[in-house]
């Protein structure tokens, strides 16, 4: 009976998610271009992208982008969560301000940052030059050694509130008597942080990091709208490269192969998240 009741949901999930997914996987093995029927070409697209240095450059960028963003969000998010968990005047206001990047539309944020980063009329360079930190504008979005860092900074700024408020929720469940006992036993603040705080919210940390890793890996708008993945793919990540191959080059089969090539990584992350959630339940 229980399984019978699941059938409608299973059908809906299969139609909405399963069918497009299977179709996309199939098309990645074809020479599909828009308006023309696909022909099966086996692993041709995969062979093509794996032999293309641009693909590996983009994949490497994606790993840097994801690891860089998630690491900083984790550390800064944890520190800020601990800070806003303390009682101080104006705490509610500070918490509200910290939520702003999360509440803003991704497109608005990206376009605003693009303006701020501009090397001729952007406020970032203007302030740095006014304060005599730099004498010439920094090419935030066009220097290949900086472009990826620039978009990582925006991703950190945008994603930080999710970390802060997830961790804050965890911190508020910790019994204050544990800290009092630790203080009596002579443990300092740092020891308390690593021996009480971190272990107490380790589940929240794991889930937050895993979910955020999946989202960051798939993020698109920040990179696409700020640098377009340029210059010369210096800041391109898998999602923007997929879009480029699909819509600028009209190579749908190849584009789906690019997207499909990272499915194993994402599946691993999802399985890991689900197991973690299941274990904690």
């Amino acid at each position, binding site marked *: 009976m229980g399984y019978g009741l699941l059938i409608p949901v299973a059908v809906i999930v299969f139609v909405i*998610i399963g069918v*497009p*997914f299977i*179709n*996309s*996987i199939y098309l*990645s093995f074809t020479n599909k*271009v*828009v*308006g*023309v029927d696909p022909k099966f070409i086996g692993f041709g697209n995969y062979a093509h992208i794996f032999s293309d240095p641009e693909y590996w450059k983009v994949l490497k960028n994606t790993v840097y982008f994801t690891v860089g963003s998630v690491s900083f969000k984790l550390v800064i998010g944890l520190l800020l969560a601990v800070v806003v968990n303390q009682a101080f005047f104006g705490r509610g206001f500070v918490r509200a301000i910290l939520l702003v990047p999360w509440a803003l539309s991704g497109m608005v944020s990206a376009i605003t940052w693009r303006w701020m*980063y*501009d*090397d*001729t*009329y952007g406020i970032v360079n*203007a302030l740095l*030059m006014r304060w005599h930190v730099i*004498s*010439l*504008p920094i*090419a*935030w*979005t*066009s*220097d*290949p050694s900086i*472009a990826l860092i620039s978009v990582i900074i925006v991703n950190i700024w945008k994603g930080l509130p999710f970390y802060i408020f997830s961790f804050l929720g965890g911190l508020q469940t910790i019994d204050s008597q544990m800290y009092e006992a630790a203080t009596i036993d002579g443990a300092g603040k740092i020891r308390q942080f690593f021996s009480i705080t971190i272990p107490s919210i380790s589940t929240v940390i794991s889930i937050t990091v895993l979910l955020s890793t*999946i989202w960051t890996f*798939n993020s*698109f708008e920040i990179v696409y709208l700020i*640098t*377009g993945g*340029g*210059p*010369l793919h*210096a800041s391109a990540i*898998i*999602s923007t490269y*997929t*879009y480029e191959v*699909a*819509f*600028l*080059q*009209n190579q*749908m089969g190849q*584009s*789906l192969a*690019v*997207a*499909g090539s*990272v*499915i194993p990584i*994402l599946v691993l992350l999802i399985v890991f998240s689900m197991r973690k959630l299941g274990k904690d339940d």
Partner: protein
Amino acid sequence: MMALALAAVLLLAGCSSSKSNSSSSSPAASNNETKPADTSNGSKEKFVFWDKGEAAEAYNKLMKARVEQFGKDNNIDVEYVVVSQNDLKAKLLAAIEAKNPPDLIVANDPVAKQFIESDQLVDTSDIMNKIDFTDAAKNIAVTSDKFFMVPHSLQLNGVFLRKDIWDQHKLPIPTTWQQLYEDAKIVNDPKNGFYATGLPLGASGGNDAENMVRDVIREYGGVIIDKDNNVTVNSKETLEALKFIAKFWQEGLTPPASVTWDDNGNNKAYLAGTVGFVINSASIYDSLKKDNPDLEKKTIMVSRLGGPIGESFVATGNVFAIFKNGKGTKWAKKFITEFYEKDFYNNLIEQVGGKYVPVINGTMDTPFWKDPNNKAAGWLDMTKSIKGSGNYPGPEDDLGSKAQTMQLATKAVARIVVEKMDPQKSLDQLEQELKQLYGKK
């Protein structure tokens, strides 16, 4: 996940439209070859038109009114949708895949040409034979000696220059690229947020960067595709051109961010007063007049710059294209045929401020174009130096448009500037990419 996202993008984009305007109206008499639609079964025929979003507001207003009137006259429903040119290709690809393309579009010709290979467009030879188009207009609409598009208007790029800055340094207006380069070294002042030039080099799929690079290559005597359709890009002339263009970035004479600019990048920089020279369509003038009349007074539009072998630039323009799988293709043909009605067409061109150069013989012979105070008249002079379309001097075909849209020449310069690649090596790579695209060995 990414594959799912892509599938969803295709699906959503195919179903969505922006700024659409559907209207229907009462029957009206029509003596044209296409009879008014039969309404006996209660459902009207429909004509779906995706027009380009134009900075000059008058254009879309006039076109919308024209389409609505067309609907009334023919007793059909009409859907007039304004689509940003930057989004058009992605939306079209999605609509075609969803088997729901519009009946008619207006697009830049390199974008429209890319739908010929996949057999999406209707042969328009009958319309081309009916209407007295100029040679330049025919040139932008022809592909492999066939017509799958109809010229709408030519849209040329001019040179906009900060005359006040050049005057301040007592410099004459440059007429060649070399002269611009020498001047740029004098007027450049990045410490105070001012760059001599605003040259685009972004690979956003737009036209500005690729057209500029190809113009300079031609003006240096380089030939990307010869008249026998051979890839002949790898020459000392092209090499010199690539090296020359790269100097503007290597010597800091243009904003570094321009390597990621899209087609709006140079407009924004010029309007912000941070660059002294750009190549652009007249949209800059429109914006200056509206938002910064002071800067407009300091700006002059000058002739295109020449290289060692003179001036040469590609003719690009707006074209109509009819989609085979649209449900109202007969209405699309009728709409195009009636579009060039003299009073309407001349008024449309004038309302857009002359930004569009007419494509019909005889339409330039009006007081608007003869007015000595009309700055837009400069566009007409430029039509004299047009050397051909994207592949020139090679035969125009859809591969030429694809190469242009993929911005292969732009990327060749970008490799020299951004990756500091040896120019000859970058040129070798360009040759290899072109040969691969054109199927040559």
